[in-house]
């Protein structure tokens, strides 16, 4: 069975601090996708990144970076120099590689991130 665990329920940091959101996943599939989504108070899930299971290269996008390690089944997300606008609930997610990337997505329970001014 597929499962995503986000052990950190809530994190609160002061603006400009770096913060890492942890994600551990379980799957029997050899090919799969991993995702991070951001959910602001408006409710819409905003796509941040998709990573194919064959691509273990870390990725950096501005202040965001992602560390994918298949050996530990982890896909952690780091925000550098956090800003108040980063406050939201962040979800890590997993899907099997079927129908390209449009297969059902298994979400973690989310981490609520609060950035204090």
């Amino acid at each position, binding site marked *: 069975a597929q499962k995503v665990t986000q052990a950190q329920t809530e994190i609160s940091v002061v603006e400009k601090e770096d913060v890492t959101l942890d994600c551990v996943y379980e799957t029997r599939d050899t090919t799969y996708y991993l995702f991070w989504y951001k959910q602001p108070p408006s409710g819409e899930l905003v796509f941040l990144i998709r990573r194919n299971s064959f691509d273990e290269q870390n990725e950096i996008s501005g202040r965001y970076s992602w560390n994918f390690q298949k050996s530990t089944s982890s896909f952690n997300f780091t925000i550098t120099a956090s800003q108040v606008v980063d406050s939201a609930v962040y979800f890590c997610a997993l899907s099997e590689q079927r129908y390209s990337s449009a297969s*059902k997505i298994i979400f973690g329970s989310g981490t609520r991130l609060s950035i204090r001014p």
Partner: protein
Amino acid sequence: DAGVTQSPTHLIKTRGQQVTLRCSPKSGHDTVSWYQQALGQGPQFIFQYYEEEERQRGNFPDRFSGHQFPNYSSELNVNALLLGDSALYLCASSLTGWAGTEAFFGQGTRLTVV
């Protein structure tokens, strides 16, 4: 380019009633998925529609049904509403195929069952 649009944004229903939620996918997308998100939890997959047929289904009872129209828009129907059906219902659209895309989500419909 409009993204995924859902209607209505909020809805209040009484136990035992039936409800229909609607979703228009992002332009160019042919696949629609529905998710239920209870308060404080991650979204749970209900089902996915492609070519007007249910392609995948999560662990939800038959009270939850759906439909996809030729223009790719979709409806989610829930019969015999229970208090536990109160949640944010999210629609996601994507493109199936070799150039497949990630799922793009709408802002959701907040359903309250009283």
